[in-house]
């Protein structure tokens, strides 16, 4: 972390990496919280990878890797999760509103991983997500068995039960966006998650208004 003079402690995770031309290609940083958001993560740069450390409950750390596409939009988010984060210090309603606007009416700024598992609230971790996929709001674009939010809740429950029973969590989480005809709006969202060495579960969720809406 940086001291009051803005000098980074030698033990800090915060680092910038550049290519041979001096262009930043990778940023290692901490996730922010309300009142202390990460400026790097709130203004993500195109074609940069962000390795993020998030402090979570029990003195643990969850780590996330965010890859931004050539337009500075989130292309993928991977995480290794060891604990939960109680509360909403990592939620940023303003950034969520901004991210949701890219999708238009019926879209929210959705998180690529659960806030309850310590994922960042800054702009870099958000994407325009169909509101029903994000929080079961508005007209469905799929069935409940095919809902991102409900899939998240199942995984969060799995994390909590492992914590309660004293087992290590060791959750792997990967989300990637597929483009649609609308720039900046993912057409589908792929989610892959697994605990330890258990079988991976892979889902692809629709992120567009269902064609049935216009039937």
């Amino acid at each position, binding site marked *: 972390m940086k001291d009051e003079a803005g000098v980074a402690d030698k033990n800090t995770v915060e680092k910038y990496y550049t290519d041979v031309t001096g262009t930043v290609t990778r940023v290692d940083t901490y996730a922010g919280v309300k009142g202390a958001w990460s400026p790097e993560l709130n203004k993500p740069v195109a074609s940069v990878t962000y390795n993020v450390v998030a402090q979570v409950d029990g003195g643990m750390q969850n780590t996330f890797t965010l890859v931004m596409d050539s337009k500075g939009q989130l292309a993928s988010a991977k995480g290794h999760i060891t604990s939960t984060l109680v509360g909403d210090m990592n939620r940023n309603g303003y950034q969520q509103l901004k991210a949701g606007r890219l999708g238009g009416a019926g879209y929210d700024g959705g998180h690529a991983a659960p806030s309850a598992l310590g994922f960042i609230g800054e702009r870099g971790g958000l994407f325009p997500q169909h509101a029903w996929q994000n929080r079961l709001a508005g007209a*469905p*674009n*799929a*069935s*409940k*068995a*095919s809902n991102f939010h409900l899939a998240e809740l199942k995984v969060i429950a799995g994390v909590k039960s492992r914590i309660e029973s004293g087992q290590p969590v060791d959750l792997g989480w990967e989300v990637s966006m597929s483009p649609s005809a609308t720039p900046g709006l993912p057409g*589908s969202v*792929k989610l892959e998650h*697994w605990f*330890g*060495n*258990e*079988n*991976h*579960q*892979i*889902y*692809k*969720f*629709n992120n567009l208004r*269902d*064609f*049935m809406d216009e*039937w």
Partner: protein
Amino acid sequence: MVKNYGMQAESEFVKEGLRQLQQEAFASDTVQGHDEVVVVLSIRGSTLHRYQTIPQPVPGGPSAHVPFSDAALDSWADELKKRSYIPGAGTWTMIKVHLYRNEEGRVEIFEDDDSTGNIESEPGLSMEECLLELAAFPRTADRIPAWMWKMFNEADAQPPVYNPELQCVEWKNKRRTVTDRGPDLSAPTTVIQASPQPGVFTKISKKLFGT
């Protein structure tokens, strides 16, 4: 119940896909010592769910997961579902892909026999999933299984139904042309007129209820 739908006509596409998957599977470090990989894929409407059943991880051991590429597996399966569609008959909702180290792989396809599910731990289709599946891959009324009709009747829902005379799907008082890959979404729907051509629902209603 296992049906083939249009799979036989796509045998080259299936074989090429299986060859690619075989290469990816057995190049992976995670299957050293194993000669078989099996993956279950469920594609309902626009949603995909998949998981590996063989090899299973050993508690405390290394991961046995094979990281298949999207192009080789998910996109291939999605395309295979569309190519397997027969207008009026439907297509599969679930497949098991069997891959072998030293033999040709195979695809086992399944149709949900009922709403309780019939394979591994995959749940059966919900009423909403049935509607989505039939909207995306329309069937004639007689090819919609009785257990689906039961769910629709209990929910007072009318499903999309394929009209073979007009080669279209009829739903919510509208018609949409159906191609051999499903409804033509680039073309607008047309409103069904009450006369002179009765919709397929009028005929079904007369047959079922005599009204």
